[in-house]
């Protein structure tokens, strides 16, 4: 190398080429040494374990519908419910009674979390979920509107694999009806504070197909047997969700 510094007529380009060539020669020589002196070690390059962290903020947009503990799960490419298909029993339990225990425990979940308690109207909650599982790139969020028979809101099977660090994405969510319980709004059929009635009931007496909810009627708007009042009415959207990838 030293000799080259005196040859100022040689173009820089050539210098660089020669430099690279000499480096290559050196490293090849080093390799040869290794082969001669040591047993060959074959190292398969391992993928570094990647951790993905997300923060999820859920806002209750309704007037008087507390949201049952928010369930958030990450999983592979699947949907936990679909308009036109019957609800799973885990979803039925959540939609009729606000109990997400079975839903969280579903085998297809690769990561999951839940809020400690209900999310009152007009409030937000932020939850964190993390995973090292490379297949956990689909998001499901679900919660019951507790002053109803079987209304729930959420989104399911949303691909979040394209989120880059600190990128956020928001959705305004409509309200589904699990189709597993008639919307009688009757005394003892609604688990929320408006009634304090029975939540999950195994019998399915509605159309047994998930669809969008038609809203509650209430005793103030023509359903005389309803335990609900005008205050429990809601409209779409009912919930706002924002997800941010934090790692």
């Amino acid at each position, binding site marked *: 190398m030293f000799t080259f510094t005196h040859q100022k007529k040689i173009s820089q380009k050539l210098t660089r080429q020669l430099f690279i060539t000499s480096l290559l020669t050196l490293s090849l020589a080093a390799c040869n040494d290794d082969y001669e002196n040591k047993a060959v070690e074959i190292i398969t390059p391992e993928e570094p374990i990647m951790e993905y962290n997300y923060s999820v903020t859920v806002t209750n947009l309704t007037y008087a519908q507390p949201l049952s503990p928010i369930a958030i799960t990450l999983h592979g490419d699947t949907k936990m419910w679909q308009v036109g298909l019957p609800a799973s029993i885990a979803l039925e339990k959540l939609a009729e009674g606000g109990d997400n225990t079975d839903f969280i425990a579903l085998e297809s979940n690769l990561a999951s979390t839940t809020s400690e308690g209900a999310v009152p109207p007009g409030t937000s909650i932020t939850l964190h979920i993390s995973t090292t599982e490379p297949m956990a790139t689909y998001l499901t969020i679900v919660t019951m509107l507790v002053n109803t028979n079987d209304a729930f809101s959420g989104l399911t099977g949303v691909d979040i694999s394209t989120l880059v660090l600190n990128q956020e994405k928001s959705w305004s969510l409509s309200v589904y*009806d699990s189709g597993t319980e008639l919307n009688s709004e009757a005394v003892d059929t609604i688990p929320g504070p408006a009634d304090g009635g029975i939540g999950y009931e195994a019998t399915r007496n509605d159309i047994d197909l998930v669809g969008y909810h038609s809203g509650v009627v209430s005793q103030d708007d023509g359903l005389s047997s309803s335990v609900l009042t005008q205050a429990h009415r809601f409209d779409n959207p009912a919930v706002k969700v924002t997800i941010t990838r934090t790692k």
Partner: protein
Amino acid sequence: MKAIKKSPIKTSLSLLALALASSTTMAQELSITVTNLTQGLHFTPVITAAHNNDNQIFMSGEMATSELQAMAEGGDISGLANLLTNADANINENPAMGLLAPTMSASFSLTSDSANTHLSLAAMVLPSNDGFVGLDSWEIPEDAGTYTVFLNAYDAGTEANDEIRGSGAPGEAGMPVPPPLDASIGMNGTGITDMESNDKVHIHRGSLGDDDMAAGKSDINNSVQRWLNPVAKLTITVQ
């Protein structure tokens, strides 16, 4: 390094070639699924069309055409189909082969000609007097991909929402009740209103209904056949 100047003739020729290529690829293959999101409404035969930007099958704030009225009051899409055919639209009619039941989907393919850059859809919702689910001139994306559009329920503004059994003929009062719906719709309602003071196409205010299947003001069941928007989902895959 030798700079190569592009000949201006070559450049304009290649631009022309590009323009030709893009106009021929403008004809698009669409796979469309329409989903009735509701648990209590049926859709009458759905009409979907790719059409040019100068035509509309309906427009909020404007009077309904007689063809739109026939669809919204009685589910008859033949008039709209004629209008669209005369406008060189690409049309799909009745993909569900009849009523599209609550929560059900119907899928179909549509090839849109290059001039037909916009998509519209209409179907009457039952039970209603003149309610329909509609999509007005959604611009079809040029990029391949799957797109989701949520649709609202409109009121054609052509008939009073009395919410009682009656006729599906244009201009005649009452709601048509086809046999599959007969058991789910009440009787002897006295009528919610005989006024239709907004005669322009507008977002439907929803049905009132009542909780008496044998009497009351309405023949609509208020805990089953009301709705909130959106009432339908359209999934469009551009190939």
